[in-house]
């Protein structure tokens, strides 16, 4: 089986999962207690007005018609109007998406750049102080709630030392680029500065997790027969370690990370809340407080789709790294 076929099958599975997500989200609304029109209309609105609104929203239709309508709407990326402000939910989400992506990517980069060398060092210097330090760090790292870490960072670094901003996202990437083109590089610093604490808060768990995985994966891989064979043919130690052992260690790590991305996205939601980061997560939490159901549904579907897409990417990377996967 070729890579293209593998990818096609994976995408098909992804579409199926997205359909499941949409279905679950659709029926979630039926679990919601209370009349949906109650949030839309003033409490003193008459029954006639309510009925007209129900008809407008299609709420008077039988469930299966509503469901099919909903599916068609979503398929056309129409997430409906916000129940609070009447603006299209898709638009509201789109405005906030870049901030979340920026944060998630920054945290991933922080995690990968720190964790893999740390894991390698830890495995190579097994039972030495460096290894103990890395083990302790990864243990505490996977046990620390990221929102608390965020608060501690804000309290002790941003507020006390006054070093980095307490929160918010005062410049976005587009602004940075235009300003750079304008010859104003200080915006780059501002942009980086506002990103540092949130990505540490969000990335620590992943840094710890990947360190742990890299260490144990390297140790397992180092015990395999091919490592001896590599050494027997005189390969330099670094080549054995990176090109062979680390590469094979990364293969299972990539899959675990795919599964763990849910934690990253979930973590982003709460990190955004802590740092007043104007992304999807703080949007979701705000909308839940407001009981804006269309917005909540739309956000969850978008997050679900994002998660599925990332997982397809991860699986493709996996297939690229491990040729046996495609053949199965």
């Amino acid at each position, binding site marked *: 089986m070729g890579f293209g076929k593998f990818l096609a099958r994976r995408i098909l599975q992804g579409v199926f999962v997205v359909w*499941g997500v949409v279905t679950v989200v659709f029926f979630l609304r039926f679990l919601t*207690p209370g009349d949906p029109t109650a949030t839309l209309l003033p409490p003193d609105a008459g029954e006639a007005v309510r009925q007209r609104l129900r008809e407008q929203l299609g709420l008077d239709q039988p469930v299966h018609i509503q469901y099919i309508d909903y599916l068609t709407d979503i398929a056309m990326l129409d997430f409906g109007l916000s129940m609070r402000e009447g603006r299209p939910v898709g638009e509201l989400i789109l405005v906030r998406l870049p901030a979340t992506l920026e944060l998630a990517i920054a945290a991933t980069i922080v995690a990968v750049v720190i964790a893999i060398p740390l894991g390698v060092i830890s495995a190579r210097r097994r039972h030495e102080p460096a290894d103990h330090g890395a083990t302790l760090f990864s243990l505490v790292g*996977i046990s620390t709630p990221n*929102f608390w870490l965020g608060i501690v960072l804000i309290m002790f670094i941003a507020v006390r030392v006054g070093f980095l901003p307490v929160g918010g996202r005062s410049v976005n990437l587009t602004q940075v680029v235009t300003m750079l083109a304008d010859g104003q590089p200080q915006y780059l610093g501002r942009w980086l500065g506002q990103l540092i604490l949130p990505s540490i808060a969000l990335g620590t768990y992943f840094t710890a997790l990947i360190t742990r995985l890299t260490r144990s994966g390297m140790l397992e891989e180092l015990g395999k027969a091919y490592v001896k064979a590599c050494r027997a043919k005189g390969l330099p130690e670094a080549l054995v370690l990176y090109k062979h052992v680390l590469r094979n260690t990364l293969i299972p790590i990539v899959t675990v990370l795919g599964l763990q991305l849910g*934690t990253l996205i979930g973590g982003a939601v709460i990190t955004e809340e802590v740092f007043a980061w104007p992304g999807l997560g703080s949007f*979701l939490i705000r909308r839940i407080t407001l009981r804006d159901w269309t917005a*909540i549904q739309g956000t*969850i579907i978008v997050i679900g789709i994002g998660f599925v897409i990332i997982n397809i990417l991860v699986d493709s990377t996996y297939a690229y790294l491990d040729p046996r996967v495609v053949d199965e």
Partner: protein
Amino acid sequence: MIPDRVRASLKRELRTSLLAKVGIVLVVSIFVLATFAPFFAPHDPTTQRVGVGGTEAQSNLPPLGFSQEVQRVSPQGTETVYVNATAEFPLGTNTQGQDILSRLIYGARVSLLVGLLGAGLAVIVGVPWGLVAGYFGGRLDDGLMRGADVMLAFPSLVLAIALVGVFRDSGFHTTRIPDPFVLAAQSETIPNVLIPRSDHVASMPESFVFPVTVTLVVALVNWVWFARVARGEAISVRTEEYVKAARSIGASDVTILRQHVLPNSVTPIIVLATIQVAAIILLESALSFLGFSGTDLTWGADIADGRGDQRSQWWIATMPGLAIVLAVVGVNLVGDWLRDALDPSIEGEGGV
């Protein structure tokens, strides 16, 4: 009940690993503190001391070893005074003057209870699901596991937030659980000599709030991991000779599942459950931090509470976070110990 070989390897691992010992000590002490909270908590965690009604204000006291500089405004102008820690409140007090140590001890109750019950519920749903899928295979397997995949497509915190958002308006969002120790200490029929510090215990809160929806929701977002592991085990056992033999002599599928497949999956499920307890404690703290759990006597809620006082009263938010870290580190260490001793290969959220 535990096979000797398993017991021996648990012991060997415990003997050689310092971390396993630390983990057990942490978990056992937190468990004991939480269970017997009324005995250990020095104060009623809900009592406020803000200085109304003639009592002296004891809010915002720093923890032992620290003192705090405060600007006090009086008619004579502002003056700077130092507030010192007192041994009465070893970890200080919060803005309402509540004793932080007592709140942490009571908060452990909610965290542990949600962790254990949530993981237990997830096991009850996930394990049969996975066993059936793996054992029967084919269409049934496809159907069941695709359903599980859909669950995995929701980041657990996002799903949990959404579900709590839905159910928070329902009647069963929280329930009050009476505290047996306090009731016993207060009752006339049980002689107080049987209860140590009975006067102290009697003055403690008679019940505490248990977040029902949060428990259901964490179970709902976690069961898939158990289904996956159970399925893997069922698949590997399905082809074993003794299972084939049992089937050939006419044992029913239910019997085979119960007598052969389930016992084989016990080890990995125990290890996974331990890891998931840690993940659930973190998830619960996040939900109560966001104010979705319906109770304010939890670690997460206390962190949210202290968040407003970022500048000076650093301990209000810091202490509950440290408690979470200690608890989760402890559970993770116990999980590592079990995994290293029992050596199943599993994956799961929150630890690998």
